[in-house]
């Protein structure tokens, strides 16, 4: 019991550190938000505007924006730790590796969600997208983003010192994240009232399963990888 509270405290401390630094520098949020904004503008020019078909491409626009913007966040996520060798300092403290990983992933999750809070309403506004089931949309974004953050944080940490990290990261994460995109687009399509003959709960459960399995796998792998 005592151990659990101490891990939770370590988790909270690292998160607070990251949020404080982010609040002062806006190193991650600012590029992420600006990039997603630009993507939305690009998308509005990339498609022939046909208001009757907005339900077909709207979910895709939302998820491509989220995926690309979250990649920008992943690239920057461990930059502060890499400069001055701060990650080694963090690993030298008695803090558990699980707490470090969970805190970094939670940080990425929060930044990405913040970006979504700005961007998704904008997409709905720009494309005049009807949202008959807002709760379903929010659920798909939260569960999907959790998956993006877990995979993204693991590989961001693994490739921290790699050459051409910015190029490699999406190459490696996109194939693994394909199920999240498939499920996310499906649930979002249902949320905007597209004609899809499926139920949202199955895909939401699928996303939850993805998050749970990869929550465990990434946690174990982070511990292993950081050791070598």
């Amino acid at each position: 019991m005592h151990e659990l509270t101490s891990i939770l405290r370590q988790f909270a401390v690292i998160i607070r550190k990251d949020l404080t630094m982010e609040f002062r520098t806006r190193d991650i949020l600012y590029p992420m938000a600006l990039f997603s904004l630009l993507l939305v503008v690009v998308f509005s020019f990339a498609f022939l505007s046909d208001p009757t078909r907005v339900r077909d491409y709207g979910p895709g626009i939302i998820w491509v924006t989220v995926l690309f913007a979250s990649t920008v966040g992943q690239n920057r996520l461990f930059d502060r730790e890499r400069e001055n060798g701060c990650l080694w300092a963090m690993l030298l403290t008695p803090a558990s590796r699980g707490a470090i990983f969970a805190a970094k992933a939670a940080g990425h999750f929060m930044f990405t969600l913040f970006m979504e809070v700005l961007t998704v309403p904008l997409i709905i506004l720009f494309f005049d997208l009807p949202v008959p089931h807002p709760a379903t949309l929010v659920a798909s974004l939260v569960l999907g983003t959790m998956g993006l953050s877990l995979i993204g944080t693991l590989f961001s940490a693994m490739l921290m010192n790699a050459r051409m990290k910015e190029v490699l990261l999406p190459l490696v994460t996109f194939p693994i994240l394909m199920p999240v995109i498939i499920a996310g687009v499906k649930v979002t399509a249902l949320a905007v009232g597209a004609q899809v003959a499926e139920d949202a709960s199955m895909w939401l459960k699928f996303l939850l399963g993805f998050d749970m399995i990869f929550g465990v796998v990434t946690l174990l792998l982070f511990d292993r990888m950081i050791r070598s």
Partner: protein
Amino acid sequence: MKSDKAIGKFGPGPLLAILATAAVLIALYAVFFIAPVEATMGIVQKIFYFHVGCAINMMVFFSLCGICGLIYLIMGGSRGRVASFVDALGVATAEVGVTLGAVVLVTGPIWARKAWGTWWTWEPRLTLALLVFLLFLAYLALRAFTGSERFGRSVAAGLAVVGLPALYFIHFAVQRWGGAHPQVVYKGGLTVPGMKLAFFLSVLAVMLVSATLALIRTQQELQARLVDDMFLKLDAEEWK
């Protein structure tokens, strides 16, 4: 030096190569002379034997690669002989798997053109093959860019290990993605005994060829590292 002896040794490679050659010839004979020509699709149906053989073996080799990564990581990335072997086997299985994947993705559309009237459909199995192929192309890219030192090895092993559960999720998502029809139309309908025989012989032949390639590649990788080590040792002695 004991490392000298490992260089230039062949092992079971040549024997396996001869077996594989024989198996391919027998399988080809079975495909073209024993199995009857399929009634509706005609001669094109014969692609099926090697196409599915490659697809099955691709999955087997990618799973092997994941297992190699898992063993490597469990051993904690040590420099021991087993870890080194498992890592080299991981490279070899991934490369052979990608080669098989390329065969699958080229023969698949040729088949689809005749059977379904289109070069590419997002049929669950085709989609799965494509996504898994991309995943392991990324594995090879990762290895190419992060090098074969300890860092690169463990990163690649990590990707292979994440790939195992990802395979399951991709499989599930792709099955349901096409719509509410998870039931896949079975491609062959292998009712004729001649077809069954040709099919199993093809799978076996592809497996033997892949195993030969993987074995030779593993040996080559291990020997390349030995040569690297020897070069570094010589270099260090020169600077003394």
